[in-house]
């Protein structure tokens, strides 16, 4: 067996040598943004410390999540983006109602996910500068089981610190996905924002299963 595996390794090594360097031949080093990377690292740490405790109830977890969310994410900006062109034509009271419903929806959707935390960690692997002072931070979400998941964070400068404006999971931007989703709902309702707000509110209502 060991003889065979040795042969296999040799074969494999020869193949790789023949076909050029297999390892990542790093292209030109991009400009790092250590401050943004540190921001994401700190956020991940705070989320794990504060949100994953098993002895807190749903209300407490939700409260802590909302604090962390509004502090670290530019929720209104993400919300405006997610509504797409409908934002422009929406009446001011609708905008306000929508942003409120959007935040509640985000909180309800994600807060509960921290309840069944299984030792996952987030490792920041890269950062780079984007246009308009923004930064992208690359990280790997490592799970106890299953493949690691690539998560990229997009941050905009906010005073002396940052605010996250998008999360890109395995190449899929949450902001763009949400915009497609919300736009479809608005358009299916003849351009009215009301039904979308109703749906977001409905989804934000915790189910009895989550309560207990």
């Amino acid at each position, binding site marked *: 067996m060991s003889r065979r595996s040795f042969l296999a390794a040799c074969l494999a090594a020869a193949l790789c040598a*023949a*076909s050029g360097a297999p390892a990542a031949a790093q292209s030109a080093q991009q400009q790092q943004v250590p401050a943004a990377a540190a921001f994401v690292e700190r956020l991940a740490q705070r989320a794990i410390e504060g949100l994953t405790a098993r002895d807190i109830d749903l209300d407490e977890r939700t409260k802590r999540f909302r604090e962390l969310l509004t502090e670290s994410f530019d929720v209104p900006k993400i919300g405006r983006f997610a509504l797409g062109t409908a934002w422009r034509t929406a009446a001011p009271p609708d905008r306000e109602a929508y942003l409120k419903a959007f935040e509640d929806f985000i909180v309800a959707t994600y807060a509960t996910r921290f309840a069944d935390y299984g030792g996952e960690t987030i490792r920041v692997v890269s950062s780079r500068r984007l246009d308009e002072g923004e930064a992208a*931070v690359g990280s790997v979400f490592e799970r106890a089981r299953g493949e690691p998941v690539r998560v990229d964070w997009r941050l905009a400068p906010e005073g002396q610190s940052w605010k996250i404006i998008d999360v890109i999971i395995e190449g899929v931007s949450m902001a*763009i996905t949400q915009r497609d*989703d919300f736009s479809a709902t608005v358009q299916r309702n003849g351009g009215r924002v009301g039904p979308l707000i109703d749906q977001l509110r409905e989804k934000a209502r915790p189910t009895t299963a989550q309560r207990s």
Partner: protein
Amino acid sequence: MSLSPSSFRTVAFAFGLFAFLALPAKAEMPAQTAQTQASDISDPFEYVNRGVFEFNRFLDEIALKPLAAWYGLLPDRAREGTHNFVGNLKTPWTAVNDLAQGEPSRFGNTFARFFINTFLGFFGAFDPAAQMGFPAHEEDAGQTFATWGVGEGPYIMLPVFGPSNLRDTVGFAVDSFLDPVNYIARHNDAQWVGPTRSAVGGVDARHRNWQQIEDLQRQSTDFYATIRRVYTERRRAAIANRAGGDAIPVPRMTDAEDAPVSAPRAEIPR
């Protein structure tokens, strides 16, 4: 499956083409459902696609989900083994596509994986190659076409097989016919091989992605639109062989800002 296995994919493919060719349906679309277009995904057959999507969701409820749930009752090792085995059967075709894409180092990696896992990993049930520094990846004809410069074409929801686009649908047909494992099986009167591995792979994938699908559904107000975006972006990422943040989609997020309605900016989505 009541369909004769060899014709299973072909029939489904024909259905997909039918959906694609059912162009006139667009004209009869009620105004309300006509336009939920994402800005950079072409979906002219949305009306038909949505119907197929509902059909697929029904199939998922009555067949795929129950099967995946039963599959989940197997011991972890059995599922790992199944996953690895089905994955290993894909590597010869992946290797062909690596070559066709002009990726010699990826070809070397795939080639090594196939031999290591087939001979040392009990016909692919184990994945010793990954520990030896040969990570898994998959390439298919749709991705190869993309590297040759073929565009996505219109989005297509295939019956049974789910989200696709014109390029990937053609690629899928090519995959089914030219895949070396299927090809050899067909020429040895083992017609059942292709459909069986597709079915097992489908159940395995449904089980592995169970939670992600639940989450996506829970966080969407229009599941069709969400799946359309997620499928498209996952494919784009796979085509770019994106290891990470170098090519993440970075939309300008200024487009929904409180700019006055009379002075829209250039990058406003449709």
